[in-house]
């Protein structure tokens, strides 16, 4: 994994639907290396679309998205997958775990397609992250047997197992109760800050906004700024 934390620069980015409808427009966005940014906005404003575009999960043809000088807009899926593999850890709203696998297997999921030399390291870091986040994975039980809060922490451990310089979180607290949400925010931001990672989280959660270094707002698919 690339240990250099990249700066994000977005310029004139547009995401359009297949029918040509504009879904997202970002004229300019800069996220400094190691910054924790929160993106807020009403439902349907395009928050997840922004996150997916930044992760290269949506092919962006108009504009520019550069991570530490590495352009991902207009590039092939192969290059974007390599970018995600090397640079991003993603946390989703509803955990998205392989429920039949153990917490350890889920945390080390990216080891399955990583180069052989990196596998052991990813597995070990996944286990360490689980322990750090307070998930007891010693009995190797199925992930579906864990509580919602624990499953989301497993998802965070999975995002961090590859030691990515960037963490992207899509409504990470949306499916949790307040106590679990607070703990997750502490874990997520704590890990990011402790290791100097860039964190971009989209959310409706005011507590998460308070934890962020900066908050930007999306309204009707347009980034309006803080």
């Amino acid at each position: 994994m690339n240990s250099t934390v990249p700066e994000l620069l977005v310029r004139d980015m547009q995401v359009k639907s297949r029918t040509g409808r504009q879904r997202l427009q970002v004229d300019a966005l800069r996220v400094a290396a190691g910054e924790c940014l929160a993106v807020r906005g009403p439902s349907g404003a395009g928050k997840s679309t922004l996150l997916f575009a930044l992760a290269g999960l949506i092919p962006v043809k108009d504009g520019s998205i550069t991570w530490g000088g590495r352009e991902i807009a207009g590039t092939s899926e192969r290059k974007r997958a390599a970018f995600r593999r090397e640079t991003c850890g993603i946390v989703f709203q509803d955990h998205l775990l392989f429920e039949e696998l153990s917490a350890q297997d889920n945390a080390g999921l990216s080891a399955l397609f990583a180069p052989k030399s990196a596998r052991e390291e990813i597995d070990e870091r996944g286990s360490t992250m689980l322990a750090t986040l307070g998930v007891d994975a010693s009995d190797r039980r199925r992930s579906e047997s864990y509580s919602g809060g624990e499953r989301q922490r497993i998802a965070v451990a999975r995002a961090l197992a590859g030691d990515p310089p960037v963490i992207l979180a899509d409504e990470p607290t949306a499916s949790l109760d307040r106590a679990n949400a607070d703990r997750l925010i502490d874990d997520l931001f704590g890990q990011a800050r402790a290791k100097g990672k860039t964190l971009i989280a989209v959310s409706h959660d005011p507590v998460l906004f308070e934890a962020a270094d900066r908050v930007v707002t999306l309204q009707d698919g347009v980034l309006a700024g803080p």
Partner: protein
Amino acid sequence: MTELWFALSAWLQDLLLLAGLLLPLLLVGWLCLRGYRLWPLLGGLLRRHAVLSLTFTLLIAISVGNGDVFIAQERGLREGSARSAEKFDMIVAAPGSEMTVMLASVYLEPTALPLLDGEIYDLVDSHEQVALAAPLAFGDSYEGAPVVGTTADFVEYLSDGLASGRMFETIEEAIIGARVALDIGDRFEPVHGDGSQGVLDEHGAVLEVVGTMPMTGSPWDQAILVPVEQVWDVHALPIGHGPDWDGTLGPPFDPANFPGTPAILVRADTLWANYSLRSEFTTDRTMAFFPGTVLAGLHALMGDVRQVMSVLAVTSQVLVAVGVLAGLSMLTRLLARRLALLRALGAPSRFIFALTWSFATLLIAGGAVLGLLLGIVTTVVISNIVSEQTDILVTARLGWRELHLVAGFVSLTGLLSLLPAALATRRPVEADLRA
């Protein structure tokens, strides 16, 4: 190259053919899977979709098993029927259906046949190129076992030497086939007919078992062989010898006292002589034929049917495989969110491709292996049933042909699975993640 191929042993050719059939699959598998650790996810998918996976696997197993059983059984029956006829070089009978005479004389199927008289028998028996001319007289039975009148020479020839006891020496003595439920020393009373006509007429003659034949794997294992004179005697016919008969069984028979025989087994003293004998004994009063030739014609017909059935079997397997692949395509949709997650984590398209393909191929290969095992068990069971019902020893076993068929099937469907695997990589990640 061709010369080199034919210089190899049959076993090696079969092995190489098997490897050749599997090679495309192995090559694709290596290209797809190299560098990835798929088993944790595959195991997880199998556990999560256990019922669906098992259903697919069983469908393929039944389809593969059915095809294998049919082919193996047909081959076993062909070999068994050929083995039963191998001692019957040539049959001379009254003109008619060669098939009917063959079924009656080789396979002991109860049939009423016209008789050849003593003059004809004498002509055949006294021919200088004939080494053995055995009359075969049918029509009696004992508890379902056909009682066949013949000569000691024929019994000796058929059995290649008795398994136990001695040859019959009087008309009250009998030799039994290996599967007849009698022992040496047992006495029994044959009846007229084979039991299929309902009421049986007892002749009143009591015979004693004095010897047993070894297992021949033919319907003759269920037969009781008696001196032909005994059959004629209990039917109140002349017994083939003149008034000055000294009691010695078998030929020479007196044409004037020869009551007739439905068939004569003829064995020439040399192989090539069979053809001239067949020509000589094919007249307006007699029909001479080689049971092997009749059987070959029957097998050729069976061979044609086998080809058709083989095509049908393969077609059904391919149809099942296509059905399974269609199912897998649907399953791929079920897996879409998980596959999208893997892609979001940075999994290369080849990893998604390898995961989907190996899942499909695992089910297909598992089904094929299970089908082979199912085929082996079913083949043995059916062989035993067929042997029991026909008295022809059917030793059907799965062979290279079936392995080749299964290997071809696995390879073909494994390659077909590339399609749903390729489709899985082309799904929209964002839409699947939000699904």
